[in-house]
């Protein structure tokens, strides 16, 4: 039982880190911390993808005319994750711009305080 989990340690790490990111999303009252939680959540999925691409004893995906499968990690998940990292940064910057905007309009970043301020408006 324990050996099964040790042999899949990256999968266990992926689930634990995903849970921590989810916890931050649910629990944090501060909007900036929520965005940090979203990023932790997202990067745990990247860990899952790169683990799937890894093959024991294989090198990086640097190929030549004689390359055979099994000696290199799978380049496709790496490509998807490169795209996902860049898209993630774009979306984070948009989320943070919205956070700055919310602060300018309401003067707070705390979720509970924000609800009070919004309810107090006519």
């Amino acid at each position, binding site marked *: 039982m324990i050996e099964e989990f040790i042999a899949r340690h990256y999968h266990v790490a992926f689930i634990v880190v995903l849970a921590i990111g989810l916890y931050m999303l649910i*629990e944090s009252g501060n909007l900036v911390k929520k965005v940090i939680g979203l990023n932790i959540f997202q990067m745990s999925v990247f860990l899952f993808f790169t683990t799937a691409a890894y093959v024991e004893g294989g090198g990086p995906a640097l190929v030549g005319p004689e390359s055979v*499968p099994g000696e290199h990690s799978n380049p496709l998940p790496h490509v998807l994750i490169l795209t996902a990292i860049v898209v993630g940064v774009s979306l984070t910057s948009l989320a943070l711009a919205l956070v700055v905007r919310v602060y300018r309009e309401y003067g707070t970043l705390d979720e509970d305080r924000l609800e009070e301020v919004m309810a107090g408006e006519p």
Partner: protein
Amino acid sequence: MTLALELALIAFVVVTAVFAALLRDVLGSIAVFAAYSLGLAIIWVLLQAPDVALTEAAVGAGVMTFLFLLTIAKTTRPDTEKPLKQVDLKAFVVVAAVALLMLTTVPAMPEVGDPDAPPVSAEHPTGEQTPYSYYIENTYVQAGIENAVAGVLVVYRGFDTFGEAVVVFAAAVGVMVVLKREVLK
């Protein structure tokens, strides 16, 4: 030896994630998040994904930290008396339930680095060639690119990369609209 190093790195990543969640000070949270990113980048070097590791170290730990710091410089940083937050029990129970449910699927996954795992095998069970084997055998021959990741990114999945550029452009327009609405009117 490698396993010990991998487990140490995993412990580092998990501990930094926990501190990012529990620190009250947002600035501290951001610093720990940068450390978390760097830990993941080192794990990706071990997983033979150097391109992902470089991008993560430059973009995840570098640019992302800069964006977060810029945000708290423009907004506010809550006052803190105690450094750490209490664990919120309700949220913890929900998250633990999700995590336990997912952990039950772990024994069904292929072992880390298993050469017979579906993503890294040369043939489908039906005998057809997998994309993995196609990319490894043909990227250099067809595209003349030694780095298969770059080859797949710009040659085989060029439209994907184009879509990514569109998303980046849309996000840039979105940031400008959100922050400078007064100017654009």
